[in-house]
């Protein structure tokens, strides 16, 4: 009971440590020891060995056994790396963040050089007539992540799908940030009637539930990468207007802006030289989180069949195509699903950290 007593009435300092969710080093899951190598080496060896056995040796065994073994091996690897990282770089080492960054780098690079990779056919059905359909994932075969019901390679589909998701997600955020940021700074700096009009417009844009607004837009647009990007950009412009306006309001009252104005500086110079450098960082730090939201939005549209169409693979339309026979062939849904989840998770994780680092105001919206 002593433990719960201290938990309910905790001193303020300890409370802060508990509220901020990610405090590496204080994790009760990770044992602390004076000789980390004694723990790290066996954990890493066990992890690698477990993975090798699960993927290469037990190829004929039950899928559940292999999945469980692989999961345990990954956990051992994670704990080993985490203890090693904490021992080398100190308690603030955040393995999850580094893994997220690594995953994003992997996805972005493979999407960029997809055409150069030795991938099996993933788009053209007429070229896969000789390929066995519905092959299970087998990491050391021609189709590492299996094939779908038309013999198309899933790894290839996932990588080309990453291209679509990233272009749409990042492109829409860049457009939204540029347009929304400009309008927001102007509204926050000039105030007056401009601000009122902008406020009413953003309020009405935000009055639509996002998915509904998106459906309304794709109803009248042809589903192509360009149009979906524009629709998603329109979706996040109001968010960016609010964000940059709120940040501008903070700085427009400050002395250095007043000084610039007193010296007779032009509005344009004040905005670009005094305000923009201050507003940019907190606004940009939100971009990762918004990319995550937009990737989910695009995948949802694809899943509903309202975004980029087959034969061009996207994560959403691969999942939609796989759901018909995923009772017997779960990899059709879960492979693209896992890639989508990991990417969104990584963007969220990096975004959280970016906001901690760059958004000193903690986003009072």
């Amino acid at each position, binding site marked *: 009971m002593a433990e719960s007593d201290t938990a*309910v*009435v905790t001193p303020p300092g300890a409370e802060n440590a508990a509220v901020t969710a990610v405090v590496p080093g204080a994790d009760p899951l990770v044992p602390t020891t004076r000789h980390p190598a004694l723990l790290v080496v066996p954990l890493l060896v066990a992890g690698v060995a477990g993975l090798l056995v699960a993927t290469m040796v037990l190829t004929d065994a039950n899928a559940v056994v292999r999945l469980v073994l692989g999961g345990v091996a990954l956990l051992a690897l994670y704990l080993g790396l985490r203890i090693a990282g904490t021992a080398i770089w100190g308690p603030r080492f955040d393995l999850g963040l580094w893994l997220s960054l690594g995953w994003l780098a992997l996805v972005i690079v493979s999407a960029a050089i997809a055409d150069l990779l030795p991938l099996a056919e993933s788009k053209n059905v007429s070229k896969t007539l000789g390929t066995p359909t519905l092959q299970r994932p087998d990491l050391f075969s021609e189709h590492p992540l299996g094939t779908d019901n038309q013999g198309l390679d899933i790894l290839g589909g996932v990588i080309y799908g990453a291209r679509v998701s990233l272009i749409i997600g990042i492109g829409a955020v860049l457009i939204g940030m540029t347009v929304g940021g400009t309008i927001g700074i102007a509204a926050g700096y000039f105030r007056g009637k401009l601000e009122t009009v902008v406020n009413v417009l953003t309020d009405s844009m935000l*009055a639509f539930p996002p998915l509904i607004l998106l459906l309304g837009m794709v109803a009248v647009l042809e589903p192509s990468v360009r149009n979906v990007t524009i629709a998603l950009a329109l979706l996040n412009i109001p968010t960016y207007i609010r964000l940059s306006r709120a940040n501008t309001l903070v700085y427009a009252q400050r002395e250095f802006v007043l000084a610039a104005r007193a010296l007779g500086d032009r509005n344009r110079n004040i905005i670009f030289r005094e305000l923009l450098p201050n507003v940019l960082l907190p606004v940009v730090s939100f971009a990762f989180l918004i990319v995550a939201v937009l990737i989910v939005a695009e995948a949802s549209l694809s899943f*509903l069949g309202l975004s980029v169409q087959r034969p061009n693979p996207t994560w959403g339309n691969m999942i939609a195509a796989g759901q018909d026979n995923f009772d017997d062939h779960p990899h059709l849904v879960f492979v693209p699903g896992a890639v989508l989840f990991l990417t969104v998770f990584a963007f969220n994780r990096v975004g959280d950290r970016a906001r901690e680092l760059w958004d000193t105001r903690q986003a009072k919206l």
Partner: protein
Amino acid sequence: MVRTIGLKLAHLVPVLFLVSLATFFMLELIPGDPAFTIAGPDATQEQYAEIRRELGLDRPVVERYVDWLGDTLTGNFGRSFFPPEQEVSTMIGQRLPVTLQITIMSIGMALLIAIPMALVVASRPGSILDRLTTAGAFGAISVPSFLAGLLLIFFFVFRQDVVRWVVLLAGLGLIAALMAPVPGKAATYPPGPHRRRYVTRSVVLALIGLAVLVGLFLTFPDFPRQGFSRITGDDGLRENLRSAFLPALTLAVIEAAVWMRLLRSDLIGTLQEDYVLAARAKGMPRWRILLKDALRPSSFSLITVVGVSIGRLLGGSIIVERIFNLPGIGTMMVQGITGKDFRVVQTGVLLIAVFYVVVNAVIDVSYSYLDPRIRRGRV
């Protein structure tokens, strides 16, 4: 207070006006001739002219807008373009109950998951359980709802035995964890009737828990992969709940993760207050402090977020309705988009947007009613 509500309502008018304008001009934005899009390439000139007249394309835009607004305000949404031709208001009347039921059920389920978990976790911040649930919630937020739905289908429908055993084992683990401190705590009572009563009560509670678990394990319900059974249908409430359970759970899981994180951090803050210290000093049991003293003042931001979620859930139910093939507003709209039945889409968008705006305004007003601190402030 009256002034606050008045300001809110005044603010609603331009927003609703712009919403109506936007949905009206959705039809105008269709590239090319709408009549051609609607009737297809094989229609005759007369048919095109007929459709144009029906859409009023031969009249000025302003006049059409005013007419349309008048019709919409009186509940006349027009007819769908394609056979089976129906009054759009009839379609909505059939489909709205389904969407509303899923939305309301998912809010209830999310609260049932989020509140107890937040209470347990917030009473011991920093514990292993706290870290695991926080990490789990962070993961759940990154799962798109259609993926969550397919995962639930896979396990609850296709691999039902796995879920059954997991529920049984998790329940046994929970009972064991709750019962573990009982012998130690019993030793703190003096020998006599008090100790006997405490031990009997604990054992009876554990047995009831066991009975519920075994009963659930033996009669674990089969959930349908898709389809919907109305309450008013032949099979009654039981079938209705069975077909609505998985769709509602899909939406609830993700909302529950957000709500749990929110309520947890608010609760941790409240538990630092002096009156909680006073209650502890009086010797109040922990559960009583959590439920009676801490929960209510910690729930303001949760209430706001739940209100905002109603609109988001209406949107999210589109996807869930598609996965589970439910006859709701969402399926209607997706069919409308793929079939280019713009009037159906237009009405659906307008309806949900207006609903969303009004709900948000009500939440804003009720928030200031619930929390006296912001009652005097300007909106």
